[in-house]
């Protein structure tokens, strides 16, 4: 545990000392300002926006996951580009411990951000249990995203390109909100679809447990698979 925490703390040092990463830490603040003050102001002024409140919240939830997805992706790509990753291959730290140490804090931090977001958003009443389930589910975007990017990108430049592509991919299931109900689960091939639908149902007071369960299962399998790919490539 000590080893895991040590590495997690080092990540904070690296992020705070790198101006190009540090700046991304303000993203959630901007997002919270939008959700707490700007959106309510706009909704009060333009009533036609009301039906889209759930969708806006879905967007905010996924954007919350993007901050650490980007930062952690860049930290690990940098580690690979500077060959530091190789050093982790020859120390008494298992690959699973390594992944846990690098992903645990980003995951928990993102979960915390979403818990706060569901709590402070002024549009829907969301209970603490629901809040926690939705936040834990949405947070899983971060490790899957980071490990997948690092399993395929060889350097920072490639990493930036994949980040752009992944940013688009995570948002694709938003289209499901604009197609007939019969077709919306076609977007279930994208894991974030199950996050979006869970949040949507929860905000509308509809059952969301089965949607979240599929989401947890989907992300669980993806996490197992991308971890294997990541381990095969990162330390060589």
């Amino acid at each position, binding site marked *: 545990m*000590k*080893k895991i925490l*040590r*590495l997690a703390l*080092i990540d904070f*040092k*690296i992020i705070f*000392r*790198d101006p190009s990463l540090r700046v991304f830490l303000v993203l959630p603040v901007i997002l919270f300002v939008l959700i707490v003050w700007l959106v309510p102001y706009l909704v009060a002024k333009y009533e036609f926006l009301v039906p889209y409140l759930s969708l806006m919240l879905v967007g905010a939830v996924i954007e919350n996951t993007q901050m650490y997805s980007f930062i952690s992706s860049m930290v690990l790509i940098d*580690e690979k580009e*500077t*060959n*530091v990753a*190789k*050093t982790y*291959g*020859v*120390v*008494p*730290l*298992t690959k699973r411990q390594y992944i846990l140490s690098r992903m645990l804090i980003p995951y928990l931090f993102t979960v915390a951000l979403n818990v706060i977001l569901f709590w402070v958003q002024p549009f829907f009443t969301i209970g603490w249990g629901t809040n926690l389930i939705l936040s834990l589910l949405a947070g899983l975007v971060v490790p899957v995203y980071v490990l997948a990017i690092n399993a395929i990108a060889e350097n920072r430049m490639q990493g930036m390109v994949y980040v752009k592509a992944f940013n688009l991919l995570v948002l694709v299931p938003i289209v499901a909100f604009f197609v007939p109900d019969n077709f919306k689960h076609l977007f279930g091939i994208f894991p974030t679809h199950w996050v979006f639908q869970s949040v949507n149902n929860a905000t509308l007071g509809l059952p969301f447990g089965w949607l979240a369960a599929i989401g947890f299962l989907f992300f669980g399998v993806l996490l197992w698979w991308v971890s294997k790919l990541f381990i095969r490539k990162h*330390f*060589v």
Partner: protein
Amino acid sequence: MIQVENLEFQYPGNDSPTLKGLNFEIDKGEVFGFLGPSGAGKSTTQKVLYKILNGYRGSVWIDGKDLSGWDNTYFGKIGVGFELPNHYLKLTGRENMDLFASFYPDGRKQKVEELFEMVDLQEALNKRVEAYSKGMKMRLNFIRAIQHNPDILFLDEPTAGLDPVNAHKIKQHILDLKAAGKTIFVTTHNMNTADEICDRVSFIVDGELKTTDSPQKLKSQYGKEAIRVELKDGRMEEFPLDKLGENTAFLTFIKQAEVKHIQTLEASLEEVFIQITGKSLVS
């Protein structure tokens, strides 16, 4: 300490194996050198030995135990000095050292200040590594590899990027580690380094070992045990080293004019390498 039999390794996607049946042994307390041009398989061999590359064929025994049978405790037993500097640039030298020391069950065996002083980096201890020169980063590589007092050291081009003074110091530290009983596996294409520090060397070309012996024996075997004497009047002659002091021809020759030059005709390690492999070390 290290026994390798019929080691073969092929990278996925490659048509042919990179290592083609290597056989060698390294004794405890020995400095063993792998000499070969770039792409010969030196680093691949080391990567197999420090368990970065799996899927090899043949057998590798470390300290009497099959390599595949070693768990994570193996990494506490070995230290690896990589060919290229690899550190967190945004962290200081001390922070880099502390981080990697924290992964070992017994931590660091020597004070970090002493390790930095050992390689003349004491002034840079609390500076971020991004401010280090390449040579400084290489010295940091070296002390990171030895900070947990490993029994076996894998050093890939340990003097690469170092100025002659620091290269000499690192070589001396390697010899000190040997004297302390450490087993050291060095890969290099710098024959001077190999000649100075290795008890035995193997020549590797295209994934095959061509020969293994001590540098001294190889140089004697492939060179002449003789000297060449050149006089200032331009005359030059060769004499065998055997009983040179009693060789009247030699004694008469050097009295005929002032001696300009005397050189041994022992081959250099590079010349031996070229003779055996038909290839040059520098590529």
